[in-house]
């Protein structure tokens, strides 16, 4: 058996097991940690496919940034998953039906693709590197979608600021520009108080 096959089965196994553990782990922090492991193994699978750029993006964006914030929140919230799990058995039939429907639909799609004799293959690179190819597609073919998605993110950002930013009156803030612009004349006052009188404000 060659190394690629070993690596594939190893990564796939870890990904599946850790994805399962995300759901069944009792401690929410453990769940998030298993989620990270899942992401990481999926990144490894991307490397095996020859899509190393996607793999690195997955690690940088999902593991390095998104999951950190996730972990951050889960650690601070102290969610009691025991109580969330209360109705597990009650919801099991409904959940099972949904899962079954999803499986059937997915297999229908898979059948439709298989019917066209299309197989999963690494994209042909024609001597162009992975990164360059994604760049070409993203910034020429899908330029419009890329820009439009940027607008969506902008709206999300405006929304977050509009709904949460509050300028409390009466709070002292450090104004560094004002601080450094202070001169001897503006920051210092020399007085000569008369004896026994002190300085009147």
């Amino acid at each position, binding site marked *: 058996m060659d190394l690629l096959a070993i690596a594939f089965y190893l990564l796939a196994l870890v990904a599946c097991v850790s994805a399962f553990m995300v759901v069944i782990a009792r401690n929410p922090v453990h769940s998030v940690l298993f989620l990270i492991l899942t992401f990481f193994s999926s990144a490894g699978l991307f490397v095996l496919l020859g899509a190393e750029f996607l793999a690195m993006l997955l690690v940088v964006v999902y593991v390095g940034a998104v999951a950190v914030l996730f972990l951050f929140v889960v650690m601070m919230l102290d969610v009691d998953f025991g109580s969330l799990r209360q109705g597990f058995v009650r919801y099991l039939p409904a959940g099972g039906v949904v899962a079954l429907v999803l499986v059937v639909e997915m297999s*229908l799609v898979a059948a439709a*693709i298989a019917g*066209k004799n299309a197989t999963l293959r690494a994209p042909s690179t024609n001597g162009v590197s992975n990164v360059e190819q994604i760049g070409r597609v993203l910034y020429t073919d*899908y330029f419009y979608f890329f820009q439009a998605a940027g607008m*969506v993110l902008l709206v999300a950002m405006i929304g977050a600021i509009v709904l949460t930013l509050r300028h409390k009156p009466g709070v002292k803030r450090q104004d560094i520009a004002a601080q450094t612009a202070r001169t001897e004349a503006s920051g210092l006052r020399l007085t000569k108080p008369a004896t026994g009188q002190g300085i009147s404000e």
Partner: protein
Amino acid sequence: MMPSNLLQIAAPELILAIGALALLVLGAFRGNRSTLLVSILAGLVLIGAAAAAAVAPLGPIFRGGFVSDEVSRFSKVAIYLMSSVALLLGERWLNRLRAGQFEYPVLILLAALGMGMMVSAGDLISLYIGVELQSLALYVLTAFRRDDGKASEAALKYFVLGALSSGILLYGASLIYGFAGSTRFVDIAHAVHTTAAPVVLIGLVFLACGLAFKVSAAPFHMWTPDVYEGAPTPVVAFIAAAPKLAAMVLFARALLEGFPDAIDQWRQVIMTIALISMAVGALAGLVQKNLKRLLAYSSILNIGYALMALSTGTQLGLQAMLVFMVLYMIDSTGAFATLAALSRDGKPMETVGDFAGLSQERPTLAIVLTVLSLSLLGLPPLSGFWGKFYVFKAALAAGQWQIAVFGLVASVPAAFYYLRIIKTMWFDAPAGRTDTPAPDAQAVAVAAGLWSLPLVLVGLAFLDPLAALAARAFGLS
């Protein structure tokens, strides 16, 4: 495609996007002092975009991701003008409640941009991105009075259900893509033409459900009454008008361009949704005490009529849908403008009881609300009648007399709740003094009322041929 031509075709959207970004920077640097200035400039940007949309050349650009044709031109002009009305209503209204912020006009601009992208979407990806851009802006606008508990609740419900529907939409889109191997409507139509596999129909149903949520058609209407009740009134006036038209046009484009050969299948789905919407809108509206909730059910009912026109799948049906939606938008904006204009002791008047004896207190607004109610009811020769007239004509021409009869029946209970408002206003004892109406909102309300009675007869002469031209875009029979 030459870049200059590309820029010309996308000019209205570029004006909106660049305008929104520039105004955002202006507001960020000048703070909330500049709210009025930003609003005025945003209004100019919207009118400029509408003008650009009216004259911009047509054609698909960005490899079919963005399609500019007669339908998109027609709806863009309507959408951008309606958005500027929302700007006019909201700016002063929020200022009176000391909730004015310069982000309000910017968000309206971005929502309008999203709607422009929706009506021009030639691809599942641009469909989704347009819907998402418009919805996100609307969620934020709903919660714009962030210290108001009801508004926050409404926004949260809107957001959670909206996210769910986006998920359904995306799931359907991915199924369709998995089947057709392309996200472009043209390619999907080609794939459906060769083989209509069951999986693509499942995807289509999911897509239709997601879009039905966006137009608030029953049984995906749950968010509508709560959002209408909780959101600031000018924002409701906005949500109830332009986004509905955008979503309906998007609906029509997705179905007629992407699945012209599966018309027998999707017609049943659309007809079912239309029937349920009419039933729910007519019956549930009967028990509403809150006028904003009542208007929410009225909008569900009216979306049922619009969907009825769409389900014909003919050119006549599309034309009827466009005319109906434009007339409905004006009526509903006028009704919400009346609500925005009226208040008692600084509190908005929302329940039906609040309007008792309004005819003695504020005769102008009472007349306007009466006219608009009668128009929504569909009494000839008011504008609402003409909208329904077109819809029923199209349905009968397509041989769908059953659904047309159902539509007529549904308008009977609906008539009851419109008449109840009129009766309360004219024949009940006055409920107390009202505040002086806000001039801006009153002006909008009066304008809508005038449109509804005499002007519509002149307006239709222009609207009808324009809509007919627009409806030719899909090459239907």
